[in-house]
């Protein structure tokens, strides 16, 4: 049984159907990358999984638990098992780094404070921000903020980590520090779904790549399969554009 199974997932913004029947699965320890042109619905997949947008139909199952996005208890269960890192970091502006990382473990998971803080310190060390515990988000660079956001998501000990274009808002010279962190997580065996435009990075770390266009999955395969020998016309066009450089 796959760790996460998504079946015929559909979602709309008003009259516009942005997800038109998406099905895929993720095994434990896999890093699955969602790629495709902007507006193809990649980010919406992650938003629907986190219940930030409601699906109109479809099935989502984590291990043996099926998620009903109409029920708040079920939504809580989904959010309990997954964590998301946003493109714009979305750190809480009114809290320092340490509070950002420890808020949910303390208040929501109700884990013991000493343990939570120790774990937070370890995570911040791992993302290379040992000396920034007391800094506020607006005192950090974009790359630093994004690494805090990753630490904040990991502090919840999620089974699946969702990464939504986490480097798109960063200046080019800050991209690598964030990608390195994600690479380390992949090496540790963290299950991740990554929406990204960094094709070089995807090729290097992804176990599987899913190419989307206009709310549908066009093609799935290993990075080598998709990048070097795409089967469908749309995938060929897309990869020839993004891999040219």
């Amino acid at each position, binding site marked *: 049984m796959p760790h996460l199974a998504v079946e015929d997932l559909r979602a709309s913004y008003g009259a516009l159907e942005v997800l038109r029947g998406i099905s895929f699965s993720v095994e434990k320890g896999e890093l699955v990358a969602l790629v495709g042109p902007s507006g193809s619905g990649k980010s919406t997949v992650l938003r629907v999984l*986190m*219940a*930030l947008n409601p699906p109109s139909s479809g099935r989502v199952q984590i291990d043996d638990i099926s998620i009903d996005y109409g029920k708040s208890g079920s939504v*809580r269960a989904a*959010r*309990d098992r997954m*964590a*998301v890192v*946003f493109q*714009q970091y*979305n*750190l*809480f*502006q*009114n809290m320092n780094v340490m509070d950002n990382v420890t*808020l*949910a473990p303390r*208040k*929501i998971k109700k884990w013991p404070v000493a343990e939570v803080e120790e774990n937070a310190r370890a995570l911040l060390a791992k993302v290379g921000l040992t000396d920034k515990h007391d800094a506020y988000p*607006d*005192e*950090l*660079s*974009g790359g630093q903020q994004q690494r805090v956001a990753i630490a904040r998501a990991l502090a*919840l000990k999620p089974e699946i980590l969702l990464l939504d274009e986490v480097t798109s808002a960063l*200046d080019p010279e800050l991209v690598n520090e964030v990608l390195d962190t994600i690479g380390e997580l992949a090496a540790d065996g963290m299950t991740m779904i990554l929406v990204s435009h960094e094709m070089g990075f995807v090729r290097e770390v992804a176990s599987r790549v899913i190419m989307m266009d206009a709310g549908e999955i066009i093609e799935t395969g290993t990075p080598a399969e998709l990048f070097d020998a795409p089967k469908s016309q749309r995938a060929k066009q897309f990869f020839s554009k993004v891999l040219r450089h």
Partner: protein
Amino acid sequence: MERILEQIPRFFTFRNMELLLEAAGMTLAITSVGCIIGFGLAFVLVYLRQTPGKWAAPLRFLCIAYVEIFRRIPFLVVIYLVLFFIQAFIADASLFTIAVIAICTYAIAYTAEIIRGGLESVPREQVEAARAMNLSRFQTTTQIVLPQAWPVIIPPAIAFAVSFIKDTALVSQIGVFELTFRGKELNNQGYSGILVFGTIAMCYFAISYPLTRYGQHLETRLATSRGRRSARKLRRT
């Protein structure tokens, strides 16, 4: 004119000044108590108004209707409505209580809009990040949204309360011993209207002007402190 001049020494007695000071205290007391309670209840109103879901639609409608209706009724009419409504059901309510409830009723409608504007000024992404971590709507509002909304809410809320000090003059109509009521009393005792209402006007001015200036000062300070923060942000990124 001579009558006024001749009255001055008789008017500015220690006793009269004591009365006016007491009355000014009453004006401040009803305004601040009414506005503070109203401010608190306005939070509740805004929170209810933001309740999601189909079943809450009537609730949202009621909250919007409350704000829209009370912003369109004269404060004087609200005072009478509160007075007679309370007297119809509770025989021995004090005038102070009635005045405070009337002020509160009105303050809710006005500050609710200020609070809503403040809460909506916080980026939606902050709320999404909190909800994705399973924070409840209440936790998200109190821990994430409100702390960031304060600088937007506080200056106009203070400006409203300060401006409302003047409007509370109308509760003199139901006999609360505040500044305007004392003024009318002194005028009825035969003191010159020019003298009495001139003095009462100065009393209001003495209360209102410094508070207005303080409010403006607070506004610029909060604005510049936020400006500094974003400037710092620009430098770093």
